[in-house]
């Protein structure tokens, strides 16, 4: 990794330069919540001023730009008694500015499933390879527990990662493209004073983590407490709405549907994000449901995140952003559920 610094003024010029030729996505505020706080989303930027570099947490994650909610996998032209299949790898060069370390780590986890396992996913691959990622450090919110999940810093998975050190950004460079772009806008070598400021900012961020979740024994706990009452306690509150999975930066479960147009000449095969909390997730033909109850489905989501994924890829799937906790209409958050599990285990 190479390091440089770039002044905020030059950064602005850089973003404007990038916008001229590319689709640039960044955090924008769209709305306000009940308490009057801004709600951010990753959206297409039309000018630099729309970019809110001091954003807190986006409601949903930039996952949408890699695993969109809906995408066409293939289209078919139907002829009398035959068909032709066309496969679409939508390749859309993009730049995403302002991704948090946790969201970058979430992408790295998705990479494990989508790229590094049997049958790589070409749709995801095309998007991942054609997206330039500019990360951004930030101070944690009250309920962030990414530090417990070891995802509060990112060392790879991005092209450029920025830390605000006053009048300039300290930039970690991870790709040649990013290096060339940065140099075009007068980045300079890191000086001792930059490095000191950078370290100070990093320390400051570190000291602000409030929420902790103990995950060391979680995989084992998931098996030991499989029959625990804790699942019922929280599961009975669950509305099986699936909001938690929709906003989660790592949830990737999906469904496939096919439909045919009214003229019977065109058909489409579509992938759409799904959630294991939805009631029919595991229902098979004839109506038999392998996970009929809300609490069994809730347990399953945690089991996959903290035990199943751990077994497959030596890491848990959750990055500790607590988006699911914020979005859940029933007030279910991973911290509360995990704390409860640990408590029963100790009793």
């Amino acid at each position, binding site marked *: 990794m190479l390091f440089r610094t770039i002044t905020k003024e030059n950064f602005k010029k850089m973003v404007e330069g990038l916008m001229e030729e590319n689709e640039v996505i960044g955090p924008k505020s769209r709305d306000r919540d009940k308490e009057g706080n801004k709600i951010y989303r990753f959206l297409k930027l039309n000018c630099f001023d729309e970019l809110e570099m001091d954003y807190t947490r986006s409601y949903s994650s930039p996952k949408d730009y890699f695993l969109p909610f809906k995408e066409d996998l293939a289209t078919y032209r139907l002829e009398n008694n035959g*068909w032709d299949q066309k496969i679409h790898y939508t390749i859309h060069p993009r730049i995403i500015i302002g991704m948090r370390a946790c969201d970058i780590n979430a992408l790295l986890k998705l990479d494990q499933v989508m790229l590094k396992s*049997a049958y790589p996913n070409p749709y995801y691959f095309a998007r991942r390879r054609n997206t330039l990622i500019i990360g951004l450090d930030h101070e944690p919110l009250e309920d962030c527990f990414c530090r417990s999940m070891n995802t509060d810093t990112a060392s790879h998975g991005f092209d450029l990662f920025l830390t605000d050190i006053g009048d300039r950004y300290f930039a970690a460079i991870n790709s040649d493209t990013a290096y060339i772009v940065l140099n075009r806008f007068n980045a300079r070598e890191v000086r001792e004073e930059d490095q000191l400021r950078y370290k100070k900012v990093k320390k400051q961020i570190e000291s602000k983590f409030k929420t902790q979740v103990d995950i060391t024994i979680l995989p084992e706990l998931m098996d030991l407490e499989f029959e625990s009452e804790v699942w019922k306690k929280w599961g009975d509150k669950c509305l099986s709405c699936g909001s938690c999975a929709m906003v989660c930066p790592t949830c990737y479960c999906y469904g496939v549907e096919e439909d045919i147009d009214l003229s019977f000449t065109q058909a489409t095969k579509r992938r759409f994000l799904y959630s294991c909390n939805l009631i029919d997730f595991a229902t098979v033909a004839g109506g038999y449901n392998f996970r009929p109850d809300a609490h069994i489905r809730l347990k399953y989501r945690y*089991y996959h995140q903290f035990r199943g994924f751990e077994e497959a890829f030596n890491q848990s799937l959750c990055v500790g952003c607590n988006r699911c906790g914020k979005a859940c209409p029933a007030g279910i958050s991973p911290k509360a559920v995990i704390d409860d599990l640990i408590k029963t285990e100790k009793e």
Partner: protein
Amino acid sequence: MQTEKSFKSEIFNIIPLTAREKLFHIKICDAYEREKFTFLPGQFVMLELPGCGEVPISISSSISNKDFIELCIRKVGKVTGLLHRLEPGAIVGIRGPFGTHFPMQKMVGCNILLIAGGLGIVPLRSTIYWANEHRSDYKDITILYGAKEPGQILFDYQFEEWHKIFDLKILTIVQNRAENWEGRVGLITDLFDEVPIDPDNTFAIVCGPPVMFKFVFAHLTNVGISRQRMFLSLERRMHCGMGKCCRCNVGSIFTCLDGPVFDYWTVMNLKEAI
């Protein structure tokens, strides 16, 4: 690499078996792809009707039949319902093969006990063909087959031929008493008193509805067969067949990638599996 690309394939022959099941003979249209297509007993394909949907179906034919594959399909819903309305000549899509297979090589020199309930006979059929084609590799081959009613017994038109050519034993049982049925009535486990099992030299392959597994495995364990010598095929909802959609996830595994064939030891230690 299996992506979304499906092989155009022609259904050129359809054999009605029962009121709900038909056997489809399907041939990959492209000669080169057809030649390349190989599978092992226990694996499945994703069968697609463009515009309608895609379903996982076990391959039921012999692996040495390079011209076409046989799929036995029960009419239960949207895609399978439409499949049953097709005529010979229809073009469908096939992706695959996917999944793990029954470890036939491991069983060399031993007895094989095949236990099927209902539609469970379908994936076992390619095992039976395998065993026949490598008949001298194995000792006794026994099939225990249970169905709800006599009318639901699949492939009975082949039993006679299997008996003779393959030199194997088939015992059937039905759950509901019926006229014209002279065989046994009861549950599949009732057949166990008719087969002496040599636990150290026997492999078991079990395939059937979830309720069957517990009782069958309990018996086989009691008899003393190692849990790693018993195999089963799990059924779960599937949408991709490639370990991505998670619909088939059980505990920490994916039925489509890590299965559908598992040994009993693995499944026993999987939460939610059986």
